[in-house]
């Protein structure tokens, strides 16, 4: 018998995917903490082997891309965003080999994996900083931003206003101040020094070579500083990100760079460059406005921010989310809007953090199923890629008594058994206690129970994800808001080639009617997308729709009515 062609060595995702540079545009992302997902080693902390065991679940849910929060060694004073080694896995999560095996197993199921990468700063325990602080003669002396005065870059705002007074902190070892845009234990790297950029790109390559499909780049607006500016979004920063993109494109295919730039859309679009910088960027300001719209029962806040969002290059995509691992950030709203949001969504002062509200989706919406469904419907209908946050698919709650953002980072609730099925360790060993309150605790809210019940939020969301993925128009299509006769109704049209989808959402907690001017679709038949029911054909007169409270319709507009 002759030898068949040897299968080429497996590296990266090419083996399991067709090449498709814009795969991320029609994908559904899922953000999770390795720490919080599943503990396979009974030590109270989730790990990569545990994560691998839960891939069937994520695949069933319809996830296309898993976004891992930082898993690098860290003193954990900022949830792992204080990295002390970029080139390995924190020992509690397993080994680099186990990480690679997890990525391979995800690829086998046609899921991609991206990871958080913190470019702006390191932990003060990182060997680079330890070396740098030794003094101006140290080989890494200029790897961080040092100064003998705090009166530099004074126009830069302080981001963590609850814990930091200054962006400068005195280091007694070196006898100088170091620059930090976040916590004082997170010194900013000095990108003026080209060695720093080289070292960071080497670190990116390390993970790409292991098969990782890309990065969520943390805190990118702050890489460079410049006197007399806010030291955010500087041209040098964009230059560096373009270099990163070029290096990634040259060595790897189908990877994605997702920028975290909590800025106004007109500034964020710069992070796409001319399609030669980041592939994706989060659209931060739309999210608080969705919550505002639902509470105020009016479409205007959303319509305004979307109309204000500039066009982006064809090969780029917005990342959209309802909630994530951070607080619901209110940096990108007016003072008046912020006061409104605090009053409506954070009636307990413990819920506030920095300029935001540290709560999960379900408690923010008072556990209202209609509201949760409506918010997902709006999210999935908007131009961009939806990013789900682990636990929100079952309506997990939060624990405002835990410090910082830990309240939204508690263990995933798999079952009603001990520790919510997350770990077989002793309760006291768990990295954080699971939720145990009667409304959102694991005995009431868990995957096992919701899998059994066809009407559960989890089962609904699984169907809804599948529906969105059947219609690439949501990821690829243009967006056009529609004037409505009723300010409580948010309506828009998505179009991709022949595919036209009309999305209409009632933001009110009462029944509503709306008349839409659909004259340009005269003769088309709207077919409701969840059940396939044809509605009366569109004419030249205003098209009337009625809704139950928080109801919504998605329609395909078909030129030919479907066969009866």
């Amino acid at each position, binding site marked *: *018998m*002759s*030898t*068949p*062609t040897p*299968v*080429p060595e497996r590296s990266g995702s*090419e*083996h*399991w*995917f*067709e*090449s498709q540079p814009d795969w991320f545009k*029609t994908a559904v992302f899922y953000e999770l903490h390795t720490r919080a997902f599943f503990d396979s080693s009974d030590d109270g902390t989730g790990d990569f082997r545990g994560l691998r*065991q*839960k*891939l*069937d*679940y994520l*695949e*069933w849910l319809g996830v296309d891309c898993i976004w891992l929060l930082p898993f690098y060694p860290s003193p954990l004073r900022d949830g792992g965003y204080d990295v002390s080694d970029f080139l390995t896995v924190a020992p509690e999560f397993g080994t680099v080999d186990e990480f690679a*095996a997890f990525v*391979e197993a995800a690829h*086998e*199921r*046609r899921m991609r994996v991206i990871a958080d990468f913190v470019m702006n700063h390191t932990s003060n325990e990182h060997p680079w900083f330890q070396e740098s602080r030794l003094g101006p003669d140290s080989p890494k002396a200029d790897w961080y931003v040092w100064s003998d005065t705090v009166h530099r870059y004074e126009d830069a705002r302080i981001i963590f206003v609850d814990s930091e007074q200054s962006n400068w902190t005195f280091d007694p070892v070196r006898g100088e101040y170091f620059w930090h845009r976040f916590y004082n234990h997170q010194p900013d790297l000095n990108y003026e020094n080209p060695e720093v950029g080289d070292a960071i790109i080497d670190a990116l390559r390390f993970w790409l070579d292991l098969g990782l499909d890309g990065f969520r780049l943390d805190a990118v607006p702050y890489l460079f500083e410049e006197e007399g500016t806010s030291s955010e979004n500087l041209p040098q920063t964009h230059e560096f990100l373009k270099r990163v993109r070029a290096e990634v494109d040259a060595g790897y*295919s189908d990877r994605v760079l997702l920028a975290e730039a909590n800025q106004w859309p007109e500034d964020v679009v710069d992070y796409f460059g001319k399609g030669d910088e980041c592939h994706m960027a989060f659209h931060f300001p739309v999210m608080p406005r969705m919550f505002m719209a639902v509470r105020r029962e009016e479409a205007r806040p959303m319509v305004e921010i979307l109309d204000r969002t500039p066009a982006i290059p064809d090969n780029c995509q917005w990342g959209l989310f309802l909630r994530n691992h951070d607080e619901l950030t209110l940096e990108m709203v007016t003072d008046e809007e912020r006061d409104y949001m605090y009053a409506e969504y954070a009636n307990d002062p413990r819920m506030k953090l920095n300029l935001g509200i540290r709560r999960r989706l379900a408690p923010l919406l008072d556990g209202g199923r209609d509201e949760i469904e409506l918010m997902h419907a709006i999210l999935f209908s908007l131009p961009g890629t939806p990013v789900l946050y682990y636990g929100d698919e079952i309506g997990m709650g939060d624990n405002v008594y835990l410090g910082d953002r830990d309240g939204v980072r508690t263990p995933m609730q*798999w*079952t009603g058994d001990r520790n919510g*099925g997350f770990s077989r360790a002793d309760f006291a060993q768990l990295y954080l206690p699971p939720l145990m309150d009667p409304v959102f605790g694991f005995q009431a809210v868990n*995957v*096992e129970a919701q*899998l*059994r019940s*066809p009407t559960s939020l989890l*089962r609904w969301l*699984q*169907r809804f994800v599948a529906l969105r993925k*059947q*219609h*690439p*128009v949501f*990821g*690829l299509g243009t967006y056009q808001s529609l004037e409505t006769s009723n300010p409580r109704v948010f309506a828009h049209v998505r179009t*991709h*080639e*022949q*595919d036209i989808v009309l999305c209409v959402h009632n933001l009110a907690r009462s029944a509503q009617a709306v008349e839409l001017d659909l004259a340009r679709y005269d003769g088309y038949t709207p077919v409701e997308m969840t059940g396939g029911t044809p509605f009366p054909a569109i004419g030249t007169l205003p098209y009337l729709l009625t809704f139950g409270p928080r109801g919504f319709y998605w329609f395909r507009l078909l030129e030919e009515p479907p066969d009866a």
Partner: protein
Amino acid sequence: MPDPTALTSEELLALVQDARWFGAKDKTPESAEIVDLPVRDPVVTLALVEVRFGTGTHEHYLLDFAADGAADVLERPEVASRLAELAGLEVDGAAVESLGVEQSNSSVILDGLHVVKLYRRLEAGPNPEIEMLRALADEGFTNAPRLEGALETPGPPLETSLVSVTGRVSAEGGGWELTVESLGDDPSWLPERAWRLGEVTAGLHGALAAHEGDLSFAPEEPSSESLQLFAAAIDEEISQTFGSLPEDDALGAVAHRAEDLRDLVQELAAVGPAGLAIRTHGDYHLGQVLWSTDADWVVIDFEGEPARSLPERRRKRSPLRDLAGMTRSFAYAADASLLLWGVEAPPGWVEACREAFVEGYLACADERLLPPSRAGFDRLLALFELEKLVYELRYEARNRPDWASIPIVGMLRMLEAAA
């Protein structure tokens, strides 16, 4: 030489759309384009065609062209033997017999000795059939065809398999045909051979489970919610299938039983430990086994269910899912005989086949792959049979309403047994 790359989108669509292996019969393709020529040879050109649909989705198909530009030329001896050569096999290439066109491939018999198969519907990733035949050969499982060669392409755009060559099995016939024919003159034919079929099936699963060195095959402890995920998926299927059943008197007996079936799913899913998950045949029924001239069963066609995606076809599952496919196929054979020729299977025939098959399987099975108790085994097998029944009902109600009685009788029997 006429160049396939000069073909227009319409011409390519015409070549693809009416083929049996074109999978998207319910969708309207908008355009087609050749995205790769993995084989460009004086004798044969293989073209990877991307077929695009208006909704922004696409699928990939493989077309073959001869030097004169003609398409679909596998039945020409020089083409089949050139492909066999490219797959790594020296052949005479004197004679070709057609084996016809399947849902996912075309194949021919070359020189009476080799089966040359051209995979038509392509996806990125290892071809399950080639992968399985290699593993089975490594483990010394001989009741399957021998893999003699394969032609693969690393892409981009796709890393995939194009052609396989296997040794031709010398057989009296296929399990399905022999069974249905036997019901007329020798109804004991299958009951006498079902025990052996169980043994061979257990051997197949044992070999697949033994191929531990390869991560794609190493048996795995299923994740704790895997059965619930499966139950949830069947539950959705029941809901969708019954929600869209056509108005038809033939369906009346079962049309209002959806809720009972959904309850039954929950009941059956309470299996406890299900045993290890392994690579399985994936599309196992009487049509996938041959009765050889050496009087033994040979298992063929390891591609998995053509309608499922490649990751699904490569999924590790409980081997009991294969058993359910076979036991349902016994019921189909009995009813097909009645529907097609008015020949009724003797009373108890299906049960006798099922029992012999299951007992033969259990006598040789690797116990790590099974639920530890017989009660758990029976429930899990019933759960997989129910999954098949739902699929059968959906298919028959849409395509062959006269045949819908087969799954309906099966469902009613199952509901009765549970009551």
